[in-house]
């Protein structure tokens, strides 16, 4: 909107206040009641929403049907070409798990860092996390040869006391992913409880009121509740922080623990975590920018917030790019012919196109974020985020397929091309993800009401230090009128 309001070139180049320096984060929000009105008001369904939901469900059903078909006829109908035994499904698994990392990063790590810009976007990111992990969790099951036996990976008590192999990275995955899903879902829900209480007390429809009353667990905003709530929130954040880092490290072990050239390397855990956060931020942009537009919430998710998030995106992009270059250097320095031949084949061999999609989308395009103007241009951020999603999917493709197709044994070198089955199920997974997300954003607040109220200046009776704006970091700041047009 900023771009719309201000003709190109006419931008005043005076340094803009950012989240940290703005003495008032949300000048467009007058008082607590307005928060309830604005955010509560965004929950009424619209025709466009119904349309989007219908499309999502259709895609999901197509994917589900294809999976059924694949189970009946066998995995042979997917594009696997031995020894490329892992394909689109594992690629998409890693892709979705990666997406799922932004949420907890934003809600937990940035919370510990007291990063102000998280307040208005973290609810969205958390919901995205939960649904992305739900999607990711499906892919290993879709991938295995006998999906009806997937529960054998879970250590459940059985009468012959046969247990899974705890040395296998796949079992680590089971633990990491399920823990991550549980914790982030809990995190999302407990964060929602006070907001549900708000909706409950604003609701007019008795049935809806009853449901919300149950969901809100009888939350009353009492100071005692808030006190324990704050503690719990702090510790959950403290737990989630190492969890986020561990989950994608464990996923990276799936590759690093195998001896294959291109996989068997120690930089994988940090490399994967950075990539995951990078892709997550990308997905957050893809989601939050349309929402703030269509829900008319530009005065909540301000350009300042996008600007700050874009800086995080740029940073992770630089880390990921560095990891790519280090990989090549390691391969060269290893003096290991398998490693060297593989990397050559990856970038200049048959897989050059995938490798270069990855490098441009993840290393080159995000460099544009060094420009403040582009950082503050939601349109550009949205386009870039699409490229980032694409690039990160291809990063996983480049990690998995070229390695398996070009390994130790030259006699077994092979090619790989997905079939209609792989593609359909990938598309179906997007349908599944957006189905849940769309359902969420119209039932529950996509912006944390209670936390937004924290950064809205309270009503005061008399002039008093308290009249100063208090941002979420708790710092008192003298009141000044904010730069006009800073938000829109």
């Amino acid at each position, binding site marked *: 909107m900023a771009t719309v309001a201000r003709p190109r070139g006419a931008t005043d180049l005076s340094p803009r206040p950012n989240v940290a320096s703005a003495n008032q984060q949300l000048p467009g929000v007058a008082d607590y009641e307005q928060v309830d009105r604005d955010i509560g008001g965004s929950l009424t369904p619209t025709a466009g929403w119904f349309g989007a939901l219908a499309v999502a469900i259709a895609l999901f*059903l197509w994917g*589900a*049907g*294809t*999976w*059924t*078909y694949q*189970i*009946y*006829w*066998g*995995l*042979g*109908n997917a594009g*696997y*070409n*031995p*020894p490329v*035994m*892992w394909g689109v499904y594992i690629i998409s698994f890693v892709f979705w798990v990666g997406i799922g990392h932004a949420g907890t990063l934003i809600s937990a790590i940035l919370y510990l860092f007291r990063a102000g810009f998280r307040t208005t976007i973290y609810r969205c990111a958390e919901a995205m996390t939960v649904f992305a992990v739900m999607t990711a969790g499906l892919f*290993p*099951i879709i*991938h*295995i*040869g*006998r*999906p*009806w036996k*997937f529960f*054998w*990976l879970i250590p459940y008590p059985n009468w012959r006391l*046969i247990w*899974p*192999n705890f*040395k*296998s*990275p*796949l*079992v680590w995955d*089971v633990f990491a992913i399920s823990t991550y899903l549980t914790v982030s879902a809990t995190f999302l829900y407990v964060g929602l409880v006070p907001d549900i209480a708000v909706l409950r007390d604003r609701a007019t429809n008795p049935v809806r009121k009853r449901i919300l009353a149950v969901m809100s667990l009888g939350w009353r905003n009492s100071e005692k509740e808030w006190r324990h709530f704050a503690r719990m929130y702090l510790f959950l954040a403290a737990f989630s922080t190492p969890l986020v880092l561990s989950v994608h490290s464990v996923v990276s072990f*799936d590759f690093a*623990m*195998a*001896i*294959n050239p291109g996989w068997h390397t120690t930089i994988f855990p940090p490399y994967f975590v950075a990539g995951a956060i990078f892709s997550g931020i990308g997905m957050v942009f893809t989601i939050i920018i349309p929402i703030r537009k269509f829900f008319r919430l530009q005065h909540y998710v301000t350009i300042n917030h996008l600007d700050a998030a874009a800086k995080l995106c740029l940073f992770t992009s630089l880390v990921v790019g560095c990891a790519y270059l280090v990989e090549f250097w390691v391969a060269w320095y290893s003096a290991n*012919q398998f490693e060297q*031949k593989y990397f050559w084949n990856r970038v200049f061999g048959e897989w050059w196109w995938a490798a270069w999609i990855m490098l441009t989308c993840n290393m080159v395009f995000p460099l544009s974020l060094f420009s403040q103007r582009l950082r503050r241009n939601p349109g550009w951020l949205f386009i870039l985020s699409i490229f980032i999603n694409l690039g990160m999917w291809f990063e996983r493709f480049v990690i998995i397929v070229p390695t*398996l197709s070009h*390994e*130790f*044994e*030259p*006699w*077994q*070198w*092979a090619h790989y091309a997905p*079939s*209609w*089955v792989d593609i*359909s199920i990938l598309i179906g997974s997007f349908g599944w993800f957006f189905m849940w997300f769309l359902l969420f954003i119209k039932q529950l607040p996509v912006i944390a009401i209670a936390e937004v109220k924290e950064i809205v200046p309270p009503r005061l009776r008399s002039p008093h230090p308290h009249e100063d704006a208090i941002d979420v970091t708790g710092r008192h700041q003298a009141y000044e009128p904010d730069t006009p047009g800073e938000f829109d």
Partner: protein
Amino acid sequence: MTEPSGSAGVKRRDFLKVLGAAGAVTTSVGCFQEDVEKLIPYLVSPDDTVPGVSTYFATTCRECAAGCGLIAETRDGRAIKLEGNPAHPVNHGALCARGQASLQGLYNPDRYRHPMARRNGKLERITWDEGIRTLRERIAGLGAGAANAVFVNQHESGSFPAFLDQWLAGYGMPAHLSYDGEAPHAVMQANRQTYGAAWPALDFTAAKLIVAVGADFLEMWGASVPQQLSFADARAKLADAPRFVYIGPRRSLTGLNADEWLACKPGSELAIVNALAGKGDVAAAATAGGVDQAALQRLAGELAATKPSLVLSGVTTANALDVALAVNALNVAAGNVGVTIKPAEALTGFDRVGSPNDLRDAVQRMASGAVPIAMFRGVNPVYVLPKSLRVAEALAKVPFKVSFSPFPDETSELCDLILPDDHFLESWGDAESVRGTISLQQPAMDRVFDTRATADVLIGVTKGDPATANRIPVADYRSWLIGRFPGGAQAFGAALARGTAPGSPAQNATASRTVAAAPAPAPAPLEGQQGDFYFVAYPSPVLGDGRATNKPWLQELPDPVTKIAWQSWIEIHPTTAARLGIENGDHITVTTAAGSVNAPAYIFMGVRQDVVAMATGRGHTGYGRYAQNVGVNPLDALPVAHDASGGLALATVKARLTKTADHSPIISTEGSARQHARGIGRAVTVAELNGPEEEEVEHFAGDNKHDFLPGLRSPVANDAQGVLGNPKSKDKGMYDPEHWSGMAKRRWAMAIDLARCTGCSACVTACYAENNIPTVGAPWQGRSLRPFHSGDGNGWDTRPGANILKGREMQWIRIERYYEGGEDGSSDFDTRFVPMMCQHCGNAPCEPVCPVYATYHSPDGLNVQVYNRCVGTRYCSNGCPYKVRYFNWHGYGEPARRQYAFPEPLNWQLNPDVTVRGKGVMEKCSFCVQRIREAEHRAKLEGRELVADEFTTSCAQACPSRAITFGDAADEKWSVARLAEDRRAYHVFEELNTFTAVVYLKKVNHPAGGER
């Protein structure tokens, strides 16, 4: 044996599988047919059959004329495995791929299931009585025409030809024609002239130099198994082994085993042989043959200097007989007769074989309408004779045609009366493979279908008419055999157990053909013809002249040279291909004076630049579901040309090449033909072998073998046994040698001698037979190409070999064929054949990654795969550096799926000791664990320890070059433990510290003049 119960209900387990995985949406799928099967095909079992225990019958293989001895293993009344008879003088226990696969002839789903007669244009079922009566009446009605009757029988040794001629004579019919499309007639005639024996025994071990002039003695040239045994033994002499030079326009499998290849033009062999014999001018010969004069000169000198040598001829040009005679003369002059060539111990399998010329003559008589009745048994003239002869049209002129063929081949489809013969595993017979030895053929099981042995049918014909009733005074052919068996019924019964007996089967006083056929038209001289390329057709090493093509194991078995399966190809030299802008798989049309043939190009260093070569055997228009419409037949482009001995000349035409627009990818199991200096197939030269042991060039930095070769124990086993590291290790259990099972005392291992291995691939088929491996290349087994379609085949990839194109072949053991050198397209390159199967690593990278312990390390050193536990994550395959794990992409074992690999009755062959793997599980070589346990249990029951080398795996058992040795490497009494200590021993990818249980012994090369 199978009646579908017709219940289209949802089977509970499949329902839950699908439901459990994909939720309620999936209940729409899953309509299955219940199959009701008889476990044991009879109610009261014979005395010699115990359910679950194998019975063994000694018999004789009739797939080719060699007549190898077989041991047929039957379980519950069904033959399940064929192995060579160790006591047999020809094959000494070895067996080739075709011999293994004859089981799939027995259980072929396309076999004629009952006699049939043509009624108003259609073949309809009849009873045997009707069939025999019809035949008798037809013959009775011949009158004087009987003299023109034609009976074409597959060439076979033994009593039957004589019996047949006797029967024919009784009706005033001329003696039968015997035909063998693979017999090298020129060589045999030359041998008869020179040595007085059609096929003297060849002793390669005695030779110091072997020169093969187009003689593919490891393939279709003569009796491949005994020749291979002898050749491998010769090569196993390492430093003292004979050097082997191959001369010919194409480097065949035999040629790839040679140390040097002289790529000469077809037709120039005579000049070269004369030059070698010192009778001709070397320079002129070199020019004529287009070979390097220096090399030829050197070889001539070498041949003169080295005694004894062994020179073999196998050219298929029009002057084949002259070449063969020249070669024989060379051998005589060199004094090789009696030393390397032993007429005294001749193989008699080829004696009295009729020549293609006779058959051509017969066909022409048919075309002239002179033949009132034609009978065919085991011969398929419509396919095996060049199209230009127009056999089908000739047959149309014959009023009555009878086929005794068990399969619906191109010829029998045109016949009026089908009296399907028994398979040799169902019927009685005998053969004379070696002079003075009767090799008996006995039924191993009851008939699969309502067929009947031809001999018994012929007897039935005589019995039906009082006039001829006592012409053959016995009830059936078996009693006839016993009647003339030396020593009678008692000796016969005794001999059956061994399979062989001294003596000679019945023979006709006269040779099978009394009237000589009209001489063949002299083929046009090669050099005079139009065309830039010599067109060379050769019999496929696997499919022969095409009679083996209807067996899925052999269609799936990659050609040992090109590694192509389920496809025909045209071999063309890289330089030529580059010049004509031809890529692998581009279709090219070869046009000769006689016709043309179109097939994808395969770029191959092993042909001359001016030669295009093509294998016979594919391109059937009938012959059952596995043979039909797979590939093309090079004979379509061949003229009817015979050499002086009447043999069909396969290299007599020049051809023009035209590149066409189509492209079909080469269906090959080959990834990269170069090993990129990764030391997979290693070789040493004699010089290095004799020299001091030094770190060989191809060896990597990495762990040296002394750490683990003794006993090949993995560090785990050692740790568990307290040998190294932590003696107080708790990680013992059954890995403790003191454990009651004592398993940890053993380490099953395998040694593979690359100096012996010839790449013939018999082991691959043996593995298919032993381990119920599905074939995946049939046209209906492909994957789906279009979304939800009806199951009627549209939308599926129905190209033959579509799955192999996606790398989904299931070869637990595969033969990797790597080239060294020759990058510049020169003829000077070395070939390494590396049999590759699960290496049963001590530290297996595949094991720890499995989330459900579906694969783990057994205490006796096996890398175990538990099919029932496998959920199919395929992580193990990613971990495996050797890529020897194979995945069930489709329901190859589910009759309800289009990919079902064992259509009734092929499933009768399945080994009851081995699971048929389900959809979605990983599988791999198990070191034939079922054989290991069987042997251990046998020993336990007999209250003894295992005897060293008392059993072996299926691949090792079949191997005709004895390259594979299996056993317990932890016990020095086993020969594998000794071989593991050999200085040639190495492990593939040692530097990965996988501590494999498979030891490879380096190939030994014999470069010219010992240089290089």
